[in-house]
């Protein structure tokens, strides 16, 4: 029972992080029609950012707060230099961001070497939950994840900017014809999406080993989450991430971590094949 509770908590943790990553990816895709293959690398940059800020002597939670902003700024630069030159060419966005991913990974190899680093978790101790001790830091990560997701929802559904963003997702051309500044929205969107990945990476930093390939394993599960959940909504990718991340945690716990990814990807491919519009399906405008 205690083991089970810990498992559920760890699973929720993994699911929430995947939700942050998928949400960023889905927002970038939904608003900009850009398939960002470098999304995992922005997560990796979040890890290195925490590492570097810690080395500069900043307290952990300051590093955690600053890292998404730093990664968002890098995203902004990437958008300005690269991404905006590939608009209207969906396949080319895959290629361009694939090249970007290569560059970001290799830059980290050149700066920090190919080896891995660790960041010490903040000393926040553990609490007893359901009869067994559980690290408080993991609870904080969950809280940050939930707060970010809620804030994103509030932004999208309670502000005029969010209204403009939803209009662009639904019909980019018409939104532009109403005077919505799509150029500025694109910049903000890419920075925000990258920032979400950076936040996920920063939060994960003390729990994983940090190396240039740290982001590599994320982009495929995140895309599968989006496709499983369905495009064109904000809740779709979250539901997809819950399914993908949850199944992954369950398989890892009850069968073996070796087979988890295999099972999850296969299941996701099957779901995508059976429900090409995703589980939270919605009629997309013909484009």
């Amino acid at each position, binding site marked *: 029972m205690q083991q089970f509770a810990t498992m559920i908590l760890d699973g929720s943790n993994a699911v929430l992080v995947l939700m942050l990553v998928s949400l960023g990816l889905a927002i970038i895709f939904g608003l900009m029609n850009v398939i960002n293959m470098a999304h995992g690398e922005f997560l990796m940059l979040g890890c290195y950012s925490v590492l570097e800020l810690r080395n500069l002597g900043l307290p952990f939670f300051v590093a955690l707060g600053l890292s998404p902003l730093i990664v968002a700024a890098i995203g902004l630069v990437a958008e300005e230099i690269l991404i905006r030159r590939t608009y209207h060419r969906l396949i080319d966005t895959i*290629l361009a961001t694939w090249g970007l991913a290569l560059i970001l990974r290799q830059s980290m190899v050149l700066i920090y070497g190919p080896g891995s680093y660790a960041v010490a978790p903040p000393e926040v101790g553990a609490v007893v939950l359901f009869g067994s001790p559980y690290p408080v830091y993991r609870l904080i990560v969950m809280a940050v994840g939930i707060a970010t997701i809620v804030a994103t929802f509030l932004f999208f559904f309670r502000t005029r900017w969010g209204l403009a963003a939803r209009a662009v997702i639904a019909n980019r051309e018409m939104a532009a014809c109403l005077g919505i500044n799509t150029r500025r929205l694109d910049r903000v969107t890419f920075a925000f999406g990258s920032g979400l990945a950076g936040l996920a990476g920063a939060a994960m930093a003390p729990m994983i080993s940090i190396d240039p390939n740290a982001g590599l394993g994320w982009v*495929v599960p995140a895309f*599968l989450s989006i496709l499983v959940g369905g495009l064109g909504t904000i809740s779709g990718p979250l539901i997809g991430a819950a399914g993908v991340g949850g199944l992954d945690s369950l398989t890892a716990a009850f069968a073996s971590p070796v087979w988890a990814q295999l099972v999850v990807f296969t299941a*996701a*491919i099957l779901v*995508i094949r059976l429900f090409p519009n995703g589980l939270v399906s919605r009629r997309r405008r013909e484009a």
Partner: protein
Amino acid sequence: MRLPSATLLGIVALVSFVLMPLVVSSWVAADFGVYFAYAIFAVSLAFLWGHAGLLSLGHAVYFGIGAYVMSIVTLGMIPGLPDLRSTWLGVVAAVVISGVAAGAVGWFFFASRGIKGAFLGIVTLALAVVVERLAINTSWLGGMNGLMSVPPINLGLNGGGPELYDPLAAYYVMLCLLAIVIALMLLVERSPFGLALASTRENELRAASLGHNVTWLKIRAFAIGGALAGLSGALFVTQFGFVSPSLIGFALSADVLIWVALGGRDFLVAAALGAIGVRYLESRLSDAIGAAWPLALGALFMLSVILFPKGVFGEAIARLDGFRARRAERSSAAGPTT
């Protein structure tokens, strides 16, 4: 009759490669033998992506299947048939099995309301990760280490014959095969099947309304692309000597995408030259600039996507075509000269 610029470039490249061993050492030639195998792989993706409009982001699966099948056959690993070691059978089995696998994957993804465009790319990429995991976790296939000491091409019916050991001989055999593959695939592209496929790429609905069975066309294209990738994998492993899970999954799938995009997806010759060019640069530059090479490749790739969306050689072919068309127009406008 004027030759298309793509054909012209192909002939110039072929002649250069035929003459090249006169000026380079035999170990450079041996490297190029491997590059030619990669070039066949690139041609298979260019056919699928450029001609049929089907983006396979996990194309290394079929290359890997070909390489593993060839290794299993020539290493005598088939259960119950330890004496079977035929290179010939290996090639046939590699082509057939990878082709059937690709056809099955194609059927799964394309039948009824199929998966299209960029999403096909994502699911094929996920599939490549799955297959890579399977290979890593299958001890019969050597797990993480893969299969080693795969013999070179053996001309005997069931091994035992003369081996294609000499790098120069292997070089010319591979060059020959590459040229034949490109010529054959060009014929396929111009056949009624190939033309129907091209019309499907341009507009699926219109192709369907013209009476083409779009799903079946795409499945066949996927099978052909897979079979060709399997052939390249089989040829690769006879020269490289070993096969590992990295050949069947994410990494090589990413590589081949870059070669084809950088070379030019619209012309088979451009894709082949892209593969050869990148591999050659990589071998030269990774010594010279070390870890900065992938950085340079990434930057080059990004630049090419922005500046030459048709790829470097693809753009060159397109411009040459335009230039020659204008010149022909000018000379015909100048009137017939005697």
